[in-house]
């Protein structure tokens, strides 16, 4: 069964009606890592937000099925509990709430939803400890308030840690590489790679090819003006890097529809 099936998805900004997504088709099967690239303003983050249920967008056409469910009918928290995880481009600070407490609350909410017993403090700390090692997260950060005073790299690593602990079926990484130096990027990427287990699907959104040197995708899609205009394997990313996004934007529309066929397999 397909994990995620996006069909002809159109979405606009609720406030002013501007259409951002103009017919997205995308299929992700369990275990696949898809990279979504595209110039600024092409709709990459909007797709991440619409899939995860962020308020402020209006879906005007199309459908999204996730794990057999009608994803668009579910509120954000139900999508999260069902197994959709979004690693934020700009993780939010929550003063006064410890990172550990926040994560434990989240984990137990999700476990409760899945009919699993809640983890007590000791079991949870053991799990956290194991996952923290995976993403090389210092213990001190776990006891600080959520993202408060974290560096850019620490925030992104914290997102990967949350992903590891919450164990989602589909992880959407929204520009996890933005604002990271090369060392921080490596750490974050190795965390993500450790979570590739042949079952989990991933949608890695990035502006630059360099992240894909570390997280090798199975498929690469290029988004332009709200549509996937080209799909291919990891070599497409390299080609893009060499030729620039203008190369895609100049392509005649005919090839775009051919590509859509590939993506919708």
């Amino acid at each position, binding site marked *: 069964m397909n994990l995620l099936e996006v069909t002809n998805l159109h979405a606009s900004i609720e406030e002013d009606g501007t259409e951002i997504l103009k017919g997205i088709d995308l299929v992700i099967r369990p275990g696949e890592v898809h990279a979504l690239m595209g110039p600024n303003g092409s709709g990459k983050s909007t797709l991440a937000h619409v899939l995860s249920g962020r308020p402020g967008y209006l879906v005007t056409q199309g459908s999204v099925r996730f794990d057999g469910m009608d994803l668009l009918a579910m509120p954000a928290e139900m999508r999260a509990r069902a197994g959709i995880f979004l690693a934020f481009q700009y*993780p939010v600070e929550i*003063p006064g709430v410890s990172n550990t407490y*926040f994560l434990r609350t*989240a984990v137990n*909410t999700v476990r409760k939803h899945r009919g699993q017993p809640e983890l007590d403090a000791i079991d949870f700390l053991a799990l956290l400890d194991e996952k923290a090692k995976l993403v090389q997260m210092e213990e001190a950060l776990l006891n600080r308030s959520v993202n408060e005073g974290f560096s850019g790299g620490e925030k992104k690593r914290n997102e990967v840690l949350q992903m590891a602990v919450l164990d989602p079926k589909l992880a959407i990484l929204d520009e996890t590489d933005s604002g990271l130096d090369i060392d921080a990027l490596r750490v974050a990427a190795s965390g993500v790679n450790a979570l590739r287990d042949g079952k989990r699907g991933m949608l890695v959104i990035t502006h630059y090819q360099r992240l894909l040197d570390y997280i090798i995708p199975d498929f690469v899609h290029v988004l332009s003006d709200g549509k996937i205009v080209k799909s291919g394997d990891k070599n497409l990313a390299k080609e893009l890097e060499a030729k620039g996004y203008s190369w895609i934007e100049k392509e005649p529309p005919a090839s775009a529809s051919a590509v859509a066929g590939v993506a919708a397999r």
Partner: protein
Amino acid sequence: MSDAVLDRLTRQEYPHGFVTDIDTDVIPAGLSEDVVRLISKKKGEPEWLLDWRLKAYRHWLTMEEPKWARVTYPPIDYQKIVYYAAPKSRKEGGPKSLEEVEPELLAMYEKLGVPLKEREILAGVAVDAVIDSVSVATTFKEKLASLGIIFCSFSEAVREHPDLVKKYLGSVVPSSDNFFAALNSAVFSDGSFCFVPKGVRCPMELSTYFRINQADTGQFERTLIVAEQGAVVSYLEGCTAPKRDTNQLHAAVVELVALDDAQIKYSTVQNWYPGDREGKGGIYNFVTKRGKCAGRNSRISWTQVETGSAITWKYPSCILLGDNSVGEFYSVALANNYQQADTGTKMIHIGKNTRSTIVSKGISAGHGQNTYRGGVTIMKNAENARNYSQCDSLLIGDQCGAHTFPYIEVKNSSATLEHEASTSKIGEDQLFYCRQRGLSAEDAVSLIVNGFAKRVLKELPMEFAVEAQKLLGVSLEGSVG
């Protein structure tokens, strides 16, 4: 968030809104010298206390209700209030021990989550339970008495320890202090009294649980806590009331006295009925609380979590008279729906090297209006006085308001004062972040608010901190819009 969610959530009921059917001794509504005399007579008080009441009453007649607070309410008709209501006890002179307390009353406290019996055994907290105008039960008395600690109802203190009461009553809040304090002094019916003798560290939390049950009654209790040289005591009060369409007045007075090296920690979890979603009903909580650090190196610490009441008018303060004395005020005040809170503190530095800390966290939601009003006064002889103030406001939604009025008066140039303030809003970003991790919107708000209030909540005794956290969550349900 959609209106449907908002609507569903705001139907959350006030869980303590029930009325207990108990046989009650109620005097007719209205206030006069005769009523003051009647209350005093019903309580079998000595002449000096009646005189004290009458003096307060006569002074009250000359006073005007204060209008400077940032709250609005229709005029209060003081002749329509019942000034005395007491559950009828089958025993003369009130119950002597828990075994003699009427089962209906025990059941009521049980329902409120204050099981007098169980708490006595399990939690090691001594409780004085005050319903309407009188104290109905005090636990752990014997154990405390063996250490020389007196913890009893105010009426009993008047009977058994008149010299102590006479010495300290009105010594911090004079009967002429303000309109509501004067009213309280005239008609106060009961409350708690606590005396910790020299050198004794009270081994358990002391607490009073206030409950208004009877309709149209005012509750006017007095609490007096005295810690002698080197004594240490931690005290907590909780309050609830039934749901009624009419407003009820609660005008209490609390006086604290700390002698040399003594420490008093006074915590409040105030959850009087706040009124309904349209702002109908609810308690007017007009309270005067003040502590006097009379001795050197003494310390008085106020911690309050104010989630209830239609209107709160309350400024727990410290008079820092003794050299090196310390005053602290930690407050979380929440105003949801149509609640109004005007609360804060006064720190009056008189002695040398006196220090004070103010941490105020105001949360406004719905149409709630939250005002911090605080005064820091450094008197002429207060060499090297220090104050640190922090006032933070959190707004939820766009119909509510937060207001801050810090007053500072410095008459000694060696003083150091710091003031920090911030206003923030629970943003869509924070909410969505939490929801994306699986938390419901309500849980997310509760989490964010508790994080905001953490600095204050951690000052509460452990078990009450947990209660207070839950209370903040419940009081805010339905505020996400």
